[in-house]
């Protein structure tokens, strides 16, 4: 054991730092787990990120990891690292509430492929996290388990739907968390809580054993502190799974190996169409400063337009609404009162969309992807946008249950993230500043299909140039 590290210091480590410290014998898994549990005990009453804490099981797993290391047994790449996950990842025999009243007692019949892969890598699963009901809001409101609160200021929303994942990683309750992303549900809590979130290419990560929301747009991915964390996490969870016939068969590269910090000559397209229109001044200013940071490391910044965005936005609005409505039809007929108002009201609109327009939206998806790539990623390596156009809203001003007039602000939260679900492109959000109220601002980077390595390389270089991702809220 090297120099002792205090408990508070341990909680501040990134996922890869914690894993590497454990592998090097500098810290025990038990100490890492105790550091996380101490933070949860001290601060989660205000944040409300945890639905189920498996304290004893986590400490038992940590003790086994310590014993395995002492015995010289092989260790996985995430050995000894405590995590918690959005409560929609099934683990056989455990309740998976999906953030809902309807599934409050649902016992999962199988374990999600991503959890199996994290288990195999040695990660410690400490339990389940708060989330938007059935992963269907962009703010983190939850009428059944209580709203999740932003650790930077408890009056503000966390972003959703992976609310507990974003808030808990930001609050240093654990080192990584699975979220899911159908319209921005990883990237929104990442940007709003000041952490890093990665949505990979559509089909990149298997969805077996994961609650569905929209077959066409659902994605599995991590919320973590750094791009390096996301790289390791993705490498261990991506790749075809026979249980998910839709999962991609493309080989999974060593993403961490590409994180050289060298982005000289990287061609960054700034899509001025749509993504910057109506952006709040602090967001626009932080975004421009972030571009300067990328340029400082040698990236070449170019402004582009994308005429495809109008169609992309219109069709994006159809697909997940229709698919969500189909999945929930029985419950919407038989027990609509068991949904929160904001959810049943959104689902209801999905039944009004004609079938031919849904098919048209799916049919135009490939051609529009080709057009968007031609406009923004031909001659360029990544496209950059703010993740959230506006400053972070409060929980009150996006609460539809309290006032339907908040509908517009509620729906606007995911304006810049939804298009990339329709397009299926790999997209990351990372912290790039704070507004005058001390709430985080995020930078979104996307690349061509299966170019996660490019996105991660750019994000990592940005984080080598800046320290926004190192800042933690004072709880």
């Amino acid at each position, binding site marked *: 054991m090297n120099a002792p590290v205090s408990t508070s210091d341990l909680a501040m480590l990134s996922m890869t730092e914690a894993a590497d410290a454990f592998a090097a014998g500098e810290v025990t898994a038990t100490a890492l787990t105790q550091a996380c549990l101490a933070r949860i005990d001290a601060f989660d009453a205000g944040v409300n990120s945890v639905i189920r804490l498996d304290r004893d099981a986590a400490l038992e797993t940590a003790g086994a990891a310590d014993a395995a290391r002492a015995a010289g047994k092989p260790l996985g790449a995430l050995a000894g690292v405590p995590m918690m996950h959005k409560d929609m990842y099934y683990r056989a025999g455990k309740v998976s509430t999906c953030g809902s009243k309807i599934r409050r007692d649902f016992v999962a019949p199988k374990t999600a492929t991503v959890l199996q892969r994290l288990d195999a890598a040695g990660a410690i699963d400490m339990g389940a996290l708060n989330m938007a009901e059935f992963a269907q809001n962009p703010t983190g409101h939850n009428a059944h388990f209580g709203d999740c609160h932003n650790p930077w200021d408890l009056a503000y929303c966390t972003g959703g739907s992976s609310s507990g994942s974003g808030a808990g990683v930001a609050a240093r309750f654990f080192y990584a968390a699975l979220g899911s992303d159908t319209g921005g549900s990883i990237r929104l809590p990442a940007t709003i809580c000041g952490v890093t979130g990665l949505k990979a290419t559509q089909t990149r990560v298997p969805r077996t054993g994961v609650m569905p929301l929209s077959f066409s747009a659902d994605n599995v991915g991590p919320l973590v502190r750094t791009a390096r964390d996301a790289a390791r996490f993705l490498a261990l969870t991506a790749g075809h799974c026979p249980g998910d016939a839709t999962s991609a068969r493309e080989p999974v590269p060593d993403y961490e190996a590409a994180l050289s910090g060298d982005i000289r000559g990287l061609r960054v397209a700034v899509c001025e169409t749509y993504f910057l229109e109506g952006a709040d001044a602090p967001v626009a200013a932080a975004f421009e400063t972030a571009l300067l940071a990328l340029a400082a490391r040698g990236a070449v910044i170019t402004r582009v337009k994308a005429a495809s965005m109008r169609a992309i936005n219109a069709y994006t609005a159809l697909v997940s609404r229709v698919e969500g409505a189909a999945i929930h039809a029985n419950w919407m007929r038989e027990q609509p009162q068991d949904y929160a108002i904001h959810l049943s009201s*959104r689902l209801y609109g999905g039944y*009004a969309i004609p079938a031919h327009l849904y098919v048209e939206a799916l049919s135009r998806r490939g051609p529009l*992807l080709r057009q968007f790539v031609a406009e923004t990623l031909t001659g360029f390596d990544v496209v950059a946008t703010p993740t959230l156009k506006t400053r972070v809203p409060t929980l009150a001003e996006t609460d539809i249950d309290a006032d339907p007039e908040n509908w517009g602000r509620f729906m606007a939260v995911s304006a810049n993230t939804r298009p990339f679900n329709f397009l299926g492109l790999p997209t990351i959000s990372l912290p790039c500043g704070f507004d005058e109220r001390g709430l985080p601002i995020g930078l979104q980077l996307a690349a061509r299909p*299966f170019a996660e390595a490019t996105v991660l390389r750019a994000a990592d270089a940005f984080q080598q140039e800046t320290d926004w991702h190192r800042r933690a809220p004072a709880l």
Partner: protein
Amino acid sequence: MEPELVVPTMEAIGRWSGVSLPNAAARHGLADHAALIAELEALRGTMVFEDEPSTFEAALRELQEPAR
């Protein structure tokens, strides 16, 4: 002023899906459809006869980064 489409849309949903209006916010959301319909009107004629949903997965594979 509520758009005219709201009431007939509620009737169509009930008839086709058997789902009833769950709350006032849902009615508010339906009013939002007027803007969406206007956007879709602007796209009429853009889908070509041969377009089919399966082209998306093919596009994902074909549009990968060129080797450099």
